[in-house]
């Protein structure tokens, strides 16, 4: 292993740049993928909330209509 290390001196900038860029890009890609997954989850929560709000409104309207006295015919 020490022979291996001795035989591998510092890489020139053009060679090393690819590896450094690769490492930082991996970090950014992981971050973007994570944020993308979280965005999809939040979209689902928003859709469910919209559905629940619609249901609550329709139920409230139904209760209100049931509570009102029926209109007299010909009044």
């Amino acid at each position, binding site marked *: *292993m020490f022979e*291996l*290390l001795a035989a*591998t001196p*510092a*890489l*020139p*900038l053009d*060679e*090393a*740049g690819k*590896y*450094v860029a*690769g*490492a*930082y890009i*991996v*970090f950014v890609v*992981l*971050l973007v993928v*994570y944020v993308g997954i*979280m965005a999809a*989850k*939040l979209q*689902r*929560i928003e*859709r*469910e*909330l919209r*559905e*629940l709000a619609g*249901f*609550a409104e329709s*139920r409230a309207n*139904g*209760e209100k209509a*049931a509570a009102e006295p029926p209109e007299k015919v010909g009044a």
Partner: protein
Amino acid sequence: MYGKGLRPLSIATVAMLTLSLSLVFFYAPLDADQGFIQKIFYIHVPLAITALIGFVVGGVFAILHLRSGDSRWDAYSYVSIHMSVIFGVAVLITGGIWAKASWGHWWVWDEPTLVSFLIVFLLYATYYPFRYAIEDRDRQARYASVFAIAAGAFVPLNFMAVRMAESLVHPRTFGTANGGLPGEMMLTFLCCLTAIALLWVTLVKFELTAKSASGQVKRLRRALDAPAPGASSRIAPEVS
């Protein structure tokens, strides 16, 4: 509840990450031995330290959960471990890239630092199947907490064992009393560590907020699903 302070925390994280990257590429000097490739150090080591501390933090939250029985601590523990596993993936990939550039190999099996991190990572990778194999919510939380405490205690023990072992190729970052780093490099490293730690905290809070919102929606659905007087229709089944 969990989202409180998320916006200033996010702004601080983005500012700190920007500052850190600027320091890495425009301020920190080139390493005399490794040259430009050493810049990977500023992302790889803070990610590793944050991931390992995150695992321990997950264990501390698990202790709080077992002591109080409050499911909030179980959520904290789960999300801490989840985030640290994601950071662990980044550590393994960035470490592999650095190893390939520096040593000519993606992985060195006789290196205790690398293998020990892999063991810790794989240990925590089993947390998910272990947790979700249990259906009952209370038992699931309790068993997961016991796992998180045992695994969390293993992390510092493992770290100390590795420090005592003879390293073949992996450098000891803080091998000397002053850390073995010149001032500019140390400043840059500390900024990077702060930025990555802030990112971890922000993402943990973000995940907890999303989980809390999802839980609230489920509660609302259950409440609305209860039959109301005069209402005949029932709400559609939960979207999984």
